[in-house]
């Protein structure tokens, strides 16, 4: 049995929309083990993105405890949170969120730049990822010159360039055609086989069911937690 990577205990998160309170997380407890492949499914507005944001330390719960690799990260200062996001967590988004002015390589190196990694080390790491993800010939292209699948591969390279422990993907295939989407999923699964903990939020049943473990979120609660043996 692998040790726990993410431990959420009794997490609550409430948003105020207009004059209504929306309970996006309602006493959620969840443990994700190191190297696990978890998909989070559920209808729109069910709170699955909130769950991912909390896991990614982009959002802080109103109550409950979050242990990342056994360390309590629930009440940390901005600077520490930023540092953990940088080193431990990789993000992939539906809309890629690449910076249009930067080339593929510069986009990949961005987290290293923020972490203050030296130029030669940055180049070494980005080169090896460009090579591995089949982007070697595209390294000097800007996002607008790349296809959707290529953009998402750049985004994945950016997410893993700091060698994080967890990869969090929010609808990574939502903006791609089926073929590119499959490529992206295979790429993420390959990274997962190498030991990276993978959490994917998706609508797509096909992708959702490929994960070894699937949870379903409805109205801020985990309604289903299914592990494929």
């Amino acid at each position, binding site marked *: 049995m692998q040790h726990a990577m993410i431990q959420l205990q009794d997490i609550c998160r409430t948003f105020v929309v207009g004059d209504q309170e929306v309970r996006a997380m309602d006493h959620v407890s969840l443990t994700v083990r190191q190297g696990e492949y978890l998909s989070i499914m559920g209808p729109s507005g069910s709170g699955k993105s909130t769950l991912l944001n909390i896991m990614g330390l982009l959002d802080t719960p109103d109550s409950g405890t979050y242990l990342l690799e056994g360390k309590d990260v629930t009440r940390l200062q901005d600077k520490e949170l930023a540092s953990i996001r940088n080193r431990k967590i990789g993000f992939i988004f539906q809309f890629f969120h690449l910076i249009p002015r930067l080339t593929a390589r510069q986009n990949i190196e961005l987290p290293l730049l*923020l972490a203050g990694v030296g130029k030669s080390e940055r180049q070494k790491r980005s080169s090896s990822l460009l090579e591995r993800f089949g982007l070697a010939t595209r390294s000097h292209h800007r996002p607008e010159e790349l296809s959707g699948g290529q953009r998402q591969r750049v985004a994945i390279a950016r997410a893993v360039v700091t060698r994080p422990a967890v990869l969090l993907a929010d609808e990574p295939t939502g903006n791609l055609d089926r073929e590119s989407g499959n490529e992206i999923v295979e790429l993420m699964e390959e990274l997962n086989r190498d030991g990276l903990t993978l959490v994917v939020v998706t609508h797509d049943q096909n992708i959702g069911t490929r994960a070894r473990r699937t949870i379903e979120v409805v109205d801020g609660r985990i309604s289903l937690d299914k592990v494929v043996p």
Partner: protein
Amino acid sequence: MLLAMSIGVAAVVLLTGIGNGARGYIVNEFSSLGTNLIIVIPGRAETASGTLSTLAGRTPRDLTLDDAKALTRNSRVTRVAPLNIGEMSAARGRRERQVPVLGSTASFLKIHHLQMSRGTFLPEGDATLARPVCVIGNKISRELFADQSPLGEQIRLAGYRCRVIGVLEGQGRSLGMDTDELVVVPVAFAQMLLNTESLFRILVEVQHSEAIDKVKTFIGDTIRQRHYGEKDVTIITQDSVLATFDTIFQVMTVTVAGIASISLAVAGILIMNVMLMSVSQRTAEIGLCKALGAARGQIMLLIVSEALLLSAFGGCLGLALGLAGARIASWLYPALDATPPFWAIGAALGTALLTGLIFSLMPARRAAGLDPILALSRR
């Protein structure tokens, strides 16, 4: 925004340049009057002109030629030139015009750094001798003698005949006197022409500037002795006059700084708006950087350094504009050396950068405070 910034910087650079040039011009003007000079003026307050002082009556307390002579009795005094000024008609044949007439001695040439174009200046020797000779300015020479040589010719000054012995080199205006339009005669002759025994003022040239204070005391003591125990003269040194001008230019510089600070404040507000706009345009990017692990400080640094870059660019543009303007001003008025001082350039650029810094802090804080989830949820 860049424009406002550059106008601010350009204004400072250009105006201080011109101010500096004007100051240099005036300092230069004074040194053309003669360095290490002390001016002795009769009375506690200055009289408006030579004619007025003569009208005021010949009291025993007026400065006289003997006073001037007494002032030479000090080893630190190199030259003394008594001075009388009046205006009268100068005529030759039927040509006649009003001219300023200056009565002095041979020392005046050296003290005032004048150059002779032709002939000789006033003869050395006894100042009390009213020799009917004169030295005339270039323009007077042309007007009275056309292309002929005036040397040795006679002209009439207020009806008195007098022989031209020299022509002054044209040096343009100097402290309200145009040497081109001047007639210089021996001081005693001028006193006769003006019907006075008093002097308009006495110029005393001192060996070196360190001796000025001692000579001032000497002059005061000498005059007091000769004037029945009353020091009824005003003693002016160039230093004191220059100090007055310095004060004027300081006030001017402060004014310029005020104007510049207004335009820099405008530039600052514009910078703030530009940066706010750029922050809201790049909300997604900033959110992304936060998700990728940028701390608040890093985001702020990013925004502030961008603003600094913008203001540095604007500042340099303004500097170029200002220097070009100063160059043009120097070219239009060659007498004015409108080179802005280094401190002004530094201060202008420094203020531009400071403005950029201060006014980008607010947008930077806003950017740093962005919620990454909201920022990223936008497309």
